[in-house]
């Protein structure tokens, strides 16, 4: 097989010696147009060959030939990842006056908040029923409130539950209203580096591999894909990884029958804004959310188990009509990479109420049962790479902080801070590291963020 491939390669190269240096050889070849740039070609135009040199086998190894990437877009602030952190970051940067591109790998916004069905907003209350996570994330919750069946349990001190579809709609509305440049179905796969300064990111999509250039990049991928590709110091973590589902017809449960049941119903989940529909969480085993084999195996296992769990519930007296409505499109990956930032959040800091002069966000408690804790701008800043900021669950924190950092409100507040900081850096023409912190804090406050 490899022999044939090599022969093909030789033919492709026109008999030129491979040893002469692949890079030089490939780059010398004329690049053909990308399919996206041939959009003017009428449908039905026959296509012969490929528009870019495919990967080849050389000495049994798969080699990706060097090539120039078409430029998809150029902007001030590039936000990679359209989850709770990314959407807020994009809106914040746009409202601060920057040109913003928001790139998302799926066809909708919200990431785990919607696609992962992690519909519980947990971690924005602190002692005394005070809500610390405000700003654009809070605006989303308020917009959901105006919708029928948008959000439930929205009252002081209680963690509300949103409807994933309503939230997808709200996010689309906000992104369209603020005229953010949106690229959906694009996976951020690489960083574009100029020395140790990031200049943009590379995306893979149905249009092929394309580049977006930007003055500042916000890594809201959750997995830290961009800062990792840029070479920023970070660490990988294994954490429990489940799959959320929704079950329906709970309003049709025969309560009289259920009352007499000797068996406690299991895997019942918790209410959503839609009557009779519960969302069911799953803890899952500790796994590497960056290992595609593990992810695949878990998808298979989880989907079988969810079906089994619902069957078990249906066999409980009174619960016969319950059915599995939907499994989350996205696996519930909780933590994968954590940035080694200039500052690292610690549980000790949370418990001892550590204050930071560059506080750009304030986190809350899972059950509103402890004090607020500050997040410094430096926890979003990589140590050794310029102009990329972490937002969401991948910011710099010790492992014990994972649960406080990874929750939805914390994603939208760190997204807010990163978006504003990136906009200021782009406008001031400075490095993200050099952003005027008081100016950043002023801007955040103007955008209704709470900084203590």
């Amino acid at each position, binding site marked *: 097989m490899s022999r044939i491939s090599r022969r093909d390669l030789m033919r492709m190269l026109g008999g030129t010696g491979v040893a002469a240096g692949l890079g030089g050889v490939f780059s010398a070849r004329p690049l053909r147009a990308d399919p996206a740039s041939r959009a003017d070609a009428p449908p039905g135009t026959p296509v012969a060959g490929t528009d870019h040199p495919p990967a080849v086998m050389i000495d049994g190894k798969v080699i990706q030939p060097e090539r120039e990437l078409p430029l998809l877009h150029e902007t001030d602030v590039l936000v990679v990842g359209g989850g709770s952190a990314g959407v807020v970051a994009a809106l914040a940067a746009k409202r601060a006056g920057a040109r913003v591109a928001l790139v998302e790998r799926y066809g909708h916004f919200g990431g785990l908040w919607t696609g992962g069905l992690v519909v519980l907003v947990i971690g924005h209350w602190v002692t005394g029923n005070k809500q610390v996570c405000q700003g654009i994330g809070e605006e989303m919750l308020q917009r959901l409130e105006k919708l029928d069946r948008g959000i439930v349990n929205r009252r002081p001190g209680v963690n509300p539950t949103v409807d994933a579809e309503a939230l997808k709609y709200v996010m689309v509305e906000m992104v369209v209203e603020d005229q953010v440049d949106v690229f959906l179905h694009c996976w951020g796969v690489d960083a574009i580096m100029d020395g140790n300064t990031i200049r943009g990111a590379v995306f893979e999509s149905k249009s092929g591999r394309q580049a977006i250039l930007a003055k500042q990049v916000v890594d809201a991928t959750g997995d830290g894909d961009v800062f990792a590709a840029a070479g920023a110091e970070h660490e990988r973590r294994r954490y429990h990884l489940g799959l959320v589902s929704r079950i329906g017809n709970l309003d049709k449960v025969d309560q009289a029958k259920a009352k007499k049941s000797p068996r406690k119903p299991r895997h019942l989940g918790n209410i959503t804004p839609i009557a009779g529909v519960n969302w069911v*969480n799953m803890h*899952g085993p*500790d796994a590497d959310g960056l290992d595609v084999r593990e992810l695949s195996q878990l998808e298979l296992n989880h989907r079988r188990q969810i079906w089994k*769990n619902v069957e078990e519930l249906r066999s409980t007296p009174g619960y016969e009509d319950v059915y599995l409505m939907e499994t989350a499109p996205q696996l519930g990956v909780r933590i994968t990479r954590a940035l080694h930032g200039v500052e690292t959040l610690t549980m000790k800091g949370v418990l001892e109420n550590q204050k930071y002069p560059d506080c750009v966000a304030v986190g809350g408690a899972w059950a509103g049962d402890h004090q607020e804790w500050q997040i410094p701008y430096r926890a979003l800043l990589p140590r050794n790479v310029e102009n990329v900021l972490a937002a969401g669950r991948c910011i710099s924190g010790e492992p014990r902080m994972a649960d406080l950092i990874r929750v939805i409100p914390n994603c939208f507040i760190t997204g807010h801070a990163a978006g504003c900081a990136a906009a200021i850096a782009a406008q001031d023409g400075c490095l993200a590291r050099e952003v005027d912190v008081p100016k950043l804090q002023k801007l955040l406050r103007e955008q209704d963020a709470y900084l203590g």
Partner: protein
Amino acid sequence: MRISVKRSRTWRFLIRLAAFAAAVVLAVDVLPWPWGPRVLPSLSPYVTIGSAVALRTVHAAALVGLPALLIVLVRRRWFCRYVCPVGMMTECAGRLRPSGKTSTVDCWVAAEGEASSEPATVGPEDVARRPRARPGLVRRMPSLGPWIALVTLGGACFGYPLLLWLDPLAIFHGAFSAGRDPAGAAGAVSAAVLAAIVLTSVVLPGAWCLRICPLGATQDLLALPRRALTRIAGRGGTSRAEPTAPKKQGLARRSVLAAGLGAVMLGLGMRWGRAAKAGARAALLRPPGSADEGRFAGLCIRCGNCLRACPSGIIEPDSRSETIAGLLAPMVRFGDDYCREDCCRCTEVCPSGAIAPVALEEKRSAPIGLAVLDPTICVLADDKECDKCARICPYQAIEIVWSEEEYIALPKIDAARCPGCGACEMVCPGTNDWEREHSDAPVPLRRAIEVHPRRSSEA
């Protein structure tokens, strides 16, 4: 002679007053010393001996009582005469009696004072010497003190000092816990007993000190060898010693009987103890370093020290004990707090050795119990996100472990690390609500993770 007696009485009264004041200060526990609360009950030779015999070891706390013990060996009832605060109270109470100017205690103490070097027998003849006292009743009263002391000593030989808690110093000390939560209930009982002693002394002067008090009786018993020696030496072989001869025989017979009875009652006590363990009520948790359940209730003198010392307020008197023996003994119940990893106060203040001293670094080897999980009510079994128990555990004894078979994660408790501090129980959000709501009979509230007593094999 008379002047010297008068002067010695005045001196004695002043010393007693000072001792009483010191006892109050110790019992109120205003001194900054960590071992302060231990001193007063430890002074009692009755407690010292009972505890040492039962534990087969001389407790560090016992050293405080050692000087008192040694003096008592040569000076009978010395403790009653100079130190005992309850004696002081009964004496004063005796004076309150309208018809009497002198109390029983004062009277026999005076008699003894006159006897100078030769300790006198406390017997009916002393009471008879007092013209205004009502000797009849007290004289006719059986002498319970030696019985109590011997039964307790007999029990102590088998590890269960049956009536150690009748020690007057423990009662006096415990009374100062009254009204102080969480020791209040036990303190109130001690205060009531103390009040009863004082009231009895008004009506029947000397009834407590001469006929009931096991501490006084212990002193009598301890003085026996010396008295025998003096008699052998031929000194004091006067008519005054005559009436004591049959009494001594009585005591010897009595001691055999009492030891036997002590053994029987010990057996019963142990059986009650086991019944309590097997009972429907969740088995009791005791403070760290507590003696094993079989003898804890006996060793404990209900002084209330541990209850008062606990900064978390998790030690409370057992008011619902299924056995009389276990009534008001300290038990641990985790409510809003747990046994702090930086504290071992309760183990420092126990005067009777019911709770042995435990150093901070030894807390793991002196467990209160063991955290036990009920997987059916753990919120993790309900697919919720929770790691409160694992997070709060000061000993890193809990880990959340995924089960591929059950397809849920559950806390796993490392028994070797868990001292049963109750921190996990305090924060656990999992309760048996469903069971309670779906049961016709009342079901007590349970948490998914609770500290249970360790079985001896686990301890």
